[in-house]
């Protein structure tokens, strides 16, 4: 069987989620009631029988290390292969680009037995079948395969997405950085297939000439030299680039067909196991249209909301159109509407937190 190395590249993460990434990287942002964003990428890699995964974080990576642990939830606690976390090694220098950090861990790449490498960010919420992408890569004898997705969603104001131009042979002809995509534009998902030997050569040659960005200096600069193919991912994937789109893409999971398409019809999405009890609904609870993880204790009213593991909604409290992350406590008579509360937030008795035009975000462990 083909030996594939998985690289989860967190070096190019952008800080669109503001307070939610104040103390954690984007990949560790909680999503969908019991997951972290990185769980989707991890599970997609495992589904493709990738047995060695290296995560390259840039900063604030305590939570990703804590979350992934030994990798046992993804069956990566193995004798051969396994999970590696490879942070920057020069703490006094700022990271100049992903290729620099790859170069700092060059021996890891050189020693890996893999012939093929999958590179992916850690924040896409999707079920991307890497087996299909690998087959595509092989069938087209590509040197590099770039995964892209046609933009769907609202018009954004800031130029934040890299887009690619693709010709009728699926060849990538150009890559534009920091654009405002219109619906249908090919957004580069910064997800690639490349052979290990080519990657190692590119890392060495780029760094030798003072070039540090994989997409710009290794892919775009070589579009004419190599066969660079575009793989169009047509499955569900929300574009998350703001608190509003984060809130909306979570809410999108309040739909049985979305739940089934992500968790029922395809491979499992694994996450860290917490051993929480089933959720308890008391005689006074009233819950409707909500996605609820285990370990919750619900005595109040919950509507159109997502509750993560271990949330308590006390008697007379109301939670509406909100996302309550792990171990949040909404006390007696409190009202939470159109709000995202980060982990361990406590909204005390009779207080209200109501997001008006856009969702309010309450920072981790805050007491209102």
């Amino acid at each position, binding site marked *: 069987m083909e030996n594939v190395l998985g690289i989860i590249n967190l070096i190019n993460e952008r800080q669109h989620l503001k307070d939610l990434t104040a103390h954690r990287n984007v990949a560790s942002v909680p999503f*969908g*009631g*019991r997951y972290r964003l990185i769980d989707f990428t991890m599970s997609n890699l495992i589904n493709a029988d990738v047995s060695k995964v290296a995560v390259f974080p840039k900063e604030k990576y305590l939570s990703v290390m804590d979350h992934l642990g030994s990798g*046992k*939830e993804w069956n990566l606690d193995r004798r051969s292969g396994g999970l590696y976390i490879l942070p920057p090694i020069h703490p006094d220098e700022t990271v100049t680009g992903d290729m620099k950090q790859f170069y700092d861990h060059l021996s890891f790449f050189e020693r890996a037995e893999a012939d093929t490498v999958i590179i992916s960010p850690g924040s896409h919420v999707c079920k991307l079948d890497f087996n299909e992408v690998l087959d595509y890569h092989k069938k087209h004898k590509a040197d590099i395969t770039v995964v892209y997705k046609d933009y769907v969603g609202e018009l954004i104001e800031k130029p934040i997405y890299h887009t690619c131009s693709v010709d009728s042979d699926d060849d990538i002809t150009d890559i534009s950085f920091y654009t405002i995509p219109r619906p249908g534009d090919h957004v580069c998902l910064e997800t690639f297939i490349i052979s290990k030997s080519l990657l190692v050569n590119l890392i060495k040659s780029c760094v030798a000439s003072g070039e540090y960005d994989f997409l710009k200096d290794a892919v775009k600069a070589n579009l004419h030299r190599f066969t660079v193919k575009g793989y169009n991912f047509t499955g569900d994937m929300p574009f998350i680039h703001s608190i509003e789109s984060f809130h909306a893409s979570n809410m999108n999971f*309040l739909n*049985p067909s979305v*739940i089934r398409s*992500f*968790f*029922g019809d395809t491979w*499992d*999405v*694994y*996450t860290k*196991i917490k*051993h*929480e*009890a*089933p*959720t*308890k*609904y*008391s*005689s*006074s*609870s*009233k*819950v*409707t*249209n*909500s*996605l*609820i*993880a*285990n*370990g919750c*204790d619900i*005595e109040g009213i919950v509507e159109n909301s*997502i*509750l993560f593991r*271990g949330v308590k909604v006390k008697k007379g409290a109301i939670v509406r159109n909100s996302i309550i992350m792990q171990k949040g406590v909404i006390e007696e008579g409190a009202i939470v509407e159109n709000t995202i509360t980060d982990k361990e937030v406590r909204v005390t008795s009779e207080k209200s937190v109501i997001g008006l035009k856009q969702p309010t975000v309450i920072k981790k462990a805050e007491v209102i």
Partner: protein
Amino acid sequence: MGAKKWIAMLLAGGQGSRLGELTIGLAKPAVPFGGKYRIIDFPLSNCTHSGIDTVGVLTQYQPLILNDYVGNGKAWDLDLDVGGVSVLPPYQGKEGGEWYKGTANAVYQNIQYIDNYDPEHVLILSGDHIYKMDYSKMLDYHIEKNAEATIAVIQVPWQEASRFGIMNTNDDDKVTQFDEKPKYPKSNLASMGVYLFNWKTLRRYLINDEKDENSSNDFGSNIIPKMLEDRKKLYAYRFNDYWKDVGTVESLWQAHMDLLEDTPNFQLNDQQWKIFARNANHPPQYISPDAEVSQSLINEGCMIHGNIEHSVLSYNVQVGYGSTIKDSVIMPNVTIGKNVHIERSIIASNCVIEDGAVVGNSAVTSDITLIGENQTIINPNKKKITLN
């Protein structure tokens, strides 16, 4: 190998025939409980929390599911190089082999396993009860009393005492007499099936008991009475928390209903004493706009479109529009169609209840209805569709 302070032997070989169809394909300790667990999770999690790192699980009846479930013990943090959890079915040695004849014989046949760890104490547990217990406190008590054996006891209502093994004790809780299911109980201290022995003493008694052809090789009927006869120091350790035998359909159902009180006597959601279980990867539960849920425990992977009232739903249970589930226990992977009515029932794993079907009897005097695993219940009024 260094000696262990103590190890546990968990008797998990019983069929649990009073659980009827629930135990056709699996042993009693493997019966699902509480929407997420199996009965064996309770003693195993108690071991983890009590600092016991070596547990032998003695299996015999329908062991496949149990073996697979216990696995390498990872879920209970018992995946260790030395010790951890070992599944111990009867085996053949040079002198031949035989089935476990009784609880004491099962441990007797594994003397070699226990000797490997050279423990000072051996804790004997059963896989029939729902409780959270810190066995290390029992060990402290055992050492403090300088006992040869300590038996955990719980006070039961006097009128029920004749259903249990009853310990008669003196003022100091030293056991003076053991009455198995006495007609006229002299005490209401019932044995919980949790025994702590000094291994050297127990080892000798097991060997002698094996030589006794009249013995039924049982802890309660043979080993304990023999030790009392020999005037060994046996103490009763009083346990004052929730403990429930779930050996019958009725008691299994009742133990589930106990969990649904607004302030239950037995709290599953206990951050200090989590109950560990395997199979924990399912998406969050979805409660649809058409659903109503009250006084219930629901696990991940469920999709609820109907009314759930005072019930326990295990993982991956689907409930269709217009259905009502009341005072019932639904085990894993059950699919319930539309306009179904289920009341005072236990539905075992992987059943399908088709649209419009009715299960259970609402009269409180009626027996609990049990639907065994993998069954399909149809609506008897449905017009028969013939394929041609």
